[in-house]
């Protein structure tokens, strides 16, 4: 397990009360990961050796990081402070829209790594396993997540996708 300091979000989000924001997000994120775990058991089989690994997903523009532990029996997906990151096995960092495109199956992770837009650190085998497991999901996890929140969720995702294509 390592602790990592990433670029502080304080400059971008000087007036946002980050702790209450994270607290507000936790039940939403928990609901998302439980739904994905229920709908995609094959994804968790593919990542079997690393189901209890702790991944930190860091979108550069966001004021917090996301902690993912892909344990099908007790999945964890929660917002955590970025500076420093809590202990973890692997870190995946990049621009938010790139991370969205990767989850959406629209971008290639290796290409994003070659261009240096995507940074990975820590246990490379765990990251490769997660990447391959996500890539085998039919359809779009991003879309499923948006569907969870009805028309407002779909509208937000559509707007984000337009920004990806812009």
């Amino acid at each position, binding site marked *: 397990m390592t602790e990592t300091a990433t670029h502080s979000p304080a400059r971008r989000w000087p007036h946002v009360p980050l702790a209450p924001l994270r607290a507000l997000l936790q039940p939403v994120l928990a609901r998302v990961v439980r739904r994905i775990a229920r709908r995609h058991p094959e994804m968790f089989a*593919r990542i079997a050796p690393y189901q209890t690994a702790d991944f930190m997903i860091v979108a550069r523009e966001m004021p917090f990081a996301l902690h993912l532990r892909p344990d099908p029996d007790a999945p964890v997906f929660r917002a955590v402070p970025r500076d420093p990151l809590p202990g973890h096995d692997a870190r995946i960092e990049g621009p938010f829209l790139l991370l969205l495109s990767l989850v959406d*199956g629209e971008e*290639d992770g*290796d290409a994003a790594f*070659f*261009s240096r837009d995507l940074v990975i*650190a820590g246990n490379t085998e765990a990251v490769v396993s997660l990447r391959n497991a996500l890539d*085998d999901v039919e359809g779009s996890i991003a879309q499923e997540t948006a569907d969870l929140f009805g028309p407002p969720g779909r509208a937000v995702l559509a707007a984000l996708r337009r920004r990806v294509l812009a």
Partner: protein
Amino acid sequence: MKQFSEAGELVCPAGTPAALRTAVDSGADSVYCGFRNATNARNFPGLNFTTEELEAAVAYAHARGSKVLLALNTYPPAGKVDLWRDAAAIAARVGVDACIVADMGVARHVAETYPRLRLHLSVQAAASSPEAIRYYCAHFGVRRVVLPRILTIPEIREIRREIPCEIETFVFGNHGLMVEGRCSLTNWMTGESTNMDGVCSPAGQVTYEEDADGALRSCLGGFTIDRFARGETAGYPTICKGRYTAPHRPEGYYAFEEPVSLNLARLLPELMAAGVHAFKIEGRQRSKSYVRKVVGAFRAAVDAIRAGAAPDLADLVVLTEGQKETQGAFQTKKWR
């Protein structure tokens, strides 16, 4: 179902069932894949197929007129052949269209036990002379050879005249330049074997570290094999594409090859004229997105050539290693 003998067959990679379906839907004539074990040379974590997944993949591909080729292209360690025997038995049972083999023992087992199962000779066999290829054809009934990426197009044309089987060449993707099937660089540094364990630069022994100046260091087995300055494009952590210092090159240089990918899109007409039956796209370790974009681009190019039109060559450089392309030895031996 498309015939194997149709010139310009597009042979496409799939590391997962979703990637296989994407390849088929994007126009693949054939899709190659492997099991989740050491029987294939892309034995990476989270990648590859279970028996049930392969069976479903064969059904999906066949229903849409595509073929499935199973990579059994590693070398069984002495006395540990059960994994390869089991894989061949499953391949025959679920109806794959061919097995891609490298090891003579595996080739013989498949040829004798499943005589109706078509055999392709993997690039891992490194058969690059008419004599070597004819040997595999004569003794194991090999119907197609995947040529190593060391031959010029005139050399391929000469070989075609002297062998009784089809030719498949790589046209896009990772540019392996070692004597394939014989490379022991990974084994030397990590103790794991590309050729027997199916792992070139195993991910479990790869680390990436960022230096204070923003440079990215890629390490394998604890050894730094490259250091990319801030903003410099990166490559795979493979030893053959590492950057090393030497007494006469203290600044560091690519001793074997730089991070670069093969792209023969512009040479497709010449390759077809030289008698190449099948074009192989590398990248079972890549994503559905890569498969969709590369397969779609080559499908359009091959169809245009068959129709007598100039192919519209898509720009695929963003998907290439180091974001650089080469035609390697196919264009000229001066390449290296």
